[in-house]
């Protein structure tokens, strides 16, 4: 009884989506700040870890939202996300990198276009490849589509790694135009060095905010962090920028989902034959949804990697795709708020959490070096000394968090396949269907009882 009332009260506090989002983010940030304070992080360390956290919340939120358009709205099982991200960021890099003649150290040059135009090019290319894959493949069954998309993303990665596409010489003039580039290419296994101005700097310049921004940095230097505050401030501001982009994605996808176009997508997800019978050209709708989602994934990839100094093919392994899937399933497919929350919870608990805990423990206890392999750890455990085993576990935390992710995914599929918010009904009607007089507009109450 008390449990129910508590749950009700909780539900009433977070009855609107913005409040729910703010509440979850507040809990995440408070936990990070509190543990940072408890373990004696400096202000710089604290800000760095928060910026890092915000970055991953931003990118995973964004990508989960884009995937929600594919899977949650349209029922397209796309596991080639990382391929579209890679296309976005590689095209951006090639367009934006300065030619070798001007750029100096970089091994392969680029076209030297302004970053804004390069980003548009990258997003456009991701959408174009979405069209290329989607045009033939969207007719397939969900599991076949899955295999085609993951094979596509691997082909993209092989292409990035190949020597064949490593470097091309650009002719002086193409169709009478004089191009600035001398050599372009994908850089092969060594990847590309992103020797252009950082995306944040380019954006602030474009908005005429660069001078005020530098002023703000010197203010921080004078009052808060005396020694080289730029990277810290950059990180925090870029993180906030990503959250703002998440907001844009959310708005765009909610708007899409509520439009007549979105209602057809939901109908396709529920039963494609019925949608077809009602005279909707479902193939066309699916293709549009797929291409839009791929463009958003490309943009997500650009925001993730374009500010990193360099990109290499191993970053674009299918693991990233599955991370985004886990985020979406945690949040609940079909709900935009859920997708973002899933991204945030995934980033905070599963992606960054284990590493953060490891750092905290290392700062708090001076444990020294752990054993180099599992055998030494087990040998010590055999002689009743658990410390080497614990150290080995801590040192392997970046591998173990993938084990944790796998187990969490299995647990979710067993116990709560609809995720945090996937149980909600998204009504297709454009008018409010709830009864006047306080009844809830979603189905949460109906099955709310079994979610302990």
């Amino acid at each position: 009884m008390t449990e129910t009332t508590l749950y009700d009260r909780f539900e009433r506090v977070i009855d609107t989506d913005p409040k729910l989002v703010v509440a979850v983010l507040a809990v995440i940030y408070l936990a990070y700040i509190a543990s940072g304070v408890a373990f004696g992080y400096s202000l710089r360390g604290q800000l760095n870890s928060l910026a890092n956290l915000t970055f991953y919340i931003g990118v995973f939120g964004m990508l989960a939202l884009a995937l929600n358009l594919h899977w949650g709205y349209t029922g397209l099982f796309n596991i080639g996300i990382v391929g579209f991200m890679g296309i976005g960021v590689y095209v951006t890099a090639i367009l934006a990198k300065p030619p070798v003649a001007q750029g100096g150290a970089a091994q392969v040059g680029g076209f030297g276009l302004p970053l804004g135009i390069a980003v548009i090019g990258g997003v456009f290319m991701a959408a174009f490849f979405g069209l290329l894959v989607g045009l033939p493949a969207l007719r397939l069954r969900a599991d076949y589509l899955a295999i085609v998309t993951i094979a596509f993303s691997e082909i993209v990665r092989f292409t990035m790694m190949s020597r064949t596409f490593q470097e091309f010489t650009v002719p002086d003039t193409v169709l009478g135009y004089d191009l600035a580039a001398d050599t372009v290419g994908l850089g092969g296994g060594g990847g590309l060095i992103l020797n252009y101005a950082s995306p944040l700097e380019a954006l602030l310049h474009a908005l005429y905010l660069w001078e005020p921004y530098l002023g703000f940095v010197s203010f921080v230097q004078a009052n808060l962090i005396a020694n080289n505050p730029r990277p810290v401030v950059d990180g925090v501001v870029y993180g906030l920028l990503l959250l703002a982009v998440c907001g844009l994605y959310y708005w765009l996808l909610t708007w899409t989902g509520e439009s007549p176009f979105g209602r057809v997508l939901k109908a396709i997800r529920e039963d494609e034959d019925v949608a077809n019978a009602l005279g909707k050209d479902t193939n066309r709708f699916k293709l549009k949804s797929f291409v839009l989602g791929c463009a958003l994934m490309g943009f997500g990839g650009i925001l993730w990697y374009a500010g990193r100094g360099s990109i290499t093919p191993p970053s674009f392994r299918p693991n990233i795709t599955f991370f985004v899937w886990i985020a979406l399933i945690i949040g609940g497919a079909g709900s935009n708020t859920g997708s973002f929350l899933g991204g945030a919870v995934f980033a905070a608990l599963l992606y960054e959490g284990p590493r953060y805990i490891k750092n905290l423990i290392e700062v708090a206890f001076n444990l020294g070096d752990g054993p180099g392999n599992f055998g030494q750890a087990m040998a010590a455990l055999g002689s009743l000394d658990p410390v080497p085993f614990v150290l080995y576990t801590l040192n392997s935390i970046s591998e173990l968090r993938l084990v944790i992710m796998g187990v969490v995914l299995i647990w979710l599929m067993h116990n709560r396949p609809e995720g945090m918010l996937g149980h909600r009904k998204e009504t297709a009607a454009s008018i409010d269907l709830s009864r006047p007089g306080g009844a809830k507009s979603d189905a949460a109450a109906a099955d709310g009882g079994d979610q302990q």
Partner: protein
Amino acid sequence: MGVSETYARGRRLAGEQPFAIVVGLVAVWLVWFLVEGLVTGRIRVSNVLSYAWDGLLRGLIVGLAGIGLSMTYSILNFANFSHGDYITSGAFSGWAVTYLLAGLGEANIGSLLLVGAGGSVFGGALGIGITTSPLAVVVGMLIAGAASIGLALFIDRFVYKPIRDESGIALLITSVGVAFALRYIIVFVFGTDVRGTTSAGEVPRVSFYLIDGSFRINAHDITLLVVAVGLMLGVHLLLQTTKLGKAMRAMSDNEDLARITGIPTEQVIRATWIVGGGLTGIAGYMFVLWKGTLGFNDGWLLLLLVFAAVILGGIGSIYGAIAGGIVIGLTASMSVIWIPSEFGRAAAFFVMIVILLFKPQGIFSGRTTA
């Protein structure tokens, strides 16, 4: 009359299946490129044969691993993305035993059981090979099969059985979780380094001189060929001559009907995991023996090729899986004649995508499990 009919049919084909014509033209070009290359001496006959031999052996591994995937795909109705990590688990457990048997007394047991994690023992130094330590290899192979069976049954009991009635997609997503957990538990225990497992120099080999170059076959090639063909024949007999094969076919056609007829479906599922898991583990072990290196990503990297083979052959057909495996293996190895070697696997994936688009029921369409 005849001409106009042919013309009309050609026109209809062009209108209905423009892609089919493109594929046909590409095939013609490929053949022309090969023949022209062989005639002018740009492509060596001995090289083509070496690629084909390499592709055949790779294909046998893919086919062997594919039988299990194909069976579970048709009977349990989901694409098992953890299958690749069953391959890896089988390989690691089998190789741990091989190291132990080959190196007992020469190195400490812990390092041997961890397959030389962190460079503590090297397979080459232990002189592992089918001729130098036959017992260690055979026992290792059997353990690989047994360990994979155990693992497959354990995972089925605790992961897949509770959600047996869910949709194929829910099971697929769950299998991704299993894949992650398995792969990184292997990393936790055995580490990320890729180790050499056999003493490559000591494997006996014969070299033929063939028209314009030499063509080599080594003892591990022969071992793989014998084991793979033997196991495939064994599965063929098992499914053709026992009631189990019939029960499997009945189940993949219609599970409810099979249950009503009195087929103990859970037992059939268990038998499927046993046959499939055993073959998968042995395939993983033989793969490592054949290529001479072992890493935690081996199975995962093989998985998409195995999927390609299974889809190519038609889901549920074990002959399809074997034939598909050989086609995919040949594609991956022989494509270097036409395209840069980095794209061998890409070519195999491309073949799979083309098959999915034009003949999604596979080349052995219509027949399921045997």
